[in-house]
């Protein structure tokens, strides 16, 4: 016997053992750490956002984070109107608008909006009437308007704002498609 693996086999452990005997197959990526990232958010304060949390999700890359905020604003600013419109015709679609906002708000550090859109998503799923949803939607609308304005104030002038090297658009896509809601 050269080595030992106990069942049930954990893939990562299996690979470590294989790597011990076949080093050419070992993944060379640095180990993932849970330690806080070295981000410098001191000069970036945006009302409605936990900037440190958002920056940590972009590995501390400030330019990339700002780019994501611009896309968030452009892609989500009509979400409340979209939810209201869909509530009358297709509640599944309305729920999906709220679900998408919940996820993307969390990614950029908009924690209050993440929580509120999650409540709206659940309320739609649980059959709450459109009239009863209005107070929540009004609150979300106010949050959205405030956040979009704050993001706009934080973004640098468009002419000088470009994606950093090696970012998502720096690599050619073999195909392209349109964005969903």
């Amino acid at each position, binding site marked *: 016997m*050269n*080595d*030992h693996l106990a069942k049930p086999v954990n*893939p*990562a452990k*299996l*690979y470590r053992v*294989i790597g*011990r*005997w*076949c*080093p*050419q*197959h070992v*993944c*060379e*990526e*640095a180990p*993932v*750490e*849970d330690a806080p*990232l070295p981000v410098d958010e001191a000069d970036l304060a945006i009302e409605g956002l936990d900037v440190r949390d958002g920056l*940590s*999700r*972009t*590995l501390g*890359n400030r330019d*990339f984070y700002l*780019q*994501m905020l611009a*896309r*968030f604003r452009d*892609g989500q600013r009509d979400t409340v109107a979209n939810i209201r419109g869909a509530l009358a015709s297709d509640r599944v679609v309305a729920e*999906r608008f709220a*679900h*998408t906002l*919940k*996820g*993307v*708000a*969390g*990614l*950029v550090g908009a924690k209050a909006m*993440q929580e509120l859109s999650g409540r709206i998503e659940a309320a739609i799923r649980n059959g709450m009437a459109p009239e009863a949803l209005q107070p929540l939607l009004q609150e979300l609308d106010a949050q959205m308007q405030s956040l979009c304005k704050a993001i706009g104030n934080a973004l640098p002038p468009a002419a000088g704002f470009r994606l950093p090297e*090696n*970012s*998502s658009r720096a*690599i050619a*896509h*073999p*195909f392209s*498609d*349109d*964005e*969903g*809601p």
Partner: protein
Amino acid sequence: MTMQASELSFLIIDDNDVSRSMMRHVLNSHKYRVAGEAASAQVGLDMFEKLEPAIVCLDIGLPDRSGLEVLKRMKELDPKAEVLMVTGSNDRNTVMEAVQNGAAGYIVKPFNPATLLRTVEQAVAKRLATGGLLTTPVAKPVDKPE
């Protein structure tokens, strides 16, 4: 044939561009190669057949078809493909269905880089170990077994 983790290609399928871009950013930062992105199930399946990615990050809530259906189709097309489900919900039934249909892992939004990479690394390890890529004869160990 030898294969490094950085040689494995990734496909990201998610209907939200911020989510796709942040996944790509984290993967690229760790030298993983993202071959393509798609915002819908149909485009994603077309790219899956053309690009033959080793690992897929697949959103469950796609506009035109459930990610769980896409997962089933992908496993029919290429059983070796490692498919990581990405979702804003950790509903137990959904997780169970994904696992039963061959999902390699589950990433809950909003994901953080460490969690995303841990899940990806497990899929990479599994793909490298079980994907028919280890054909080099076993040699002496580089250090003593623990």
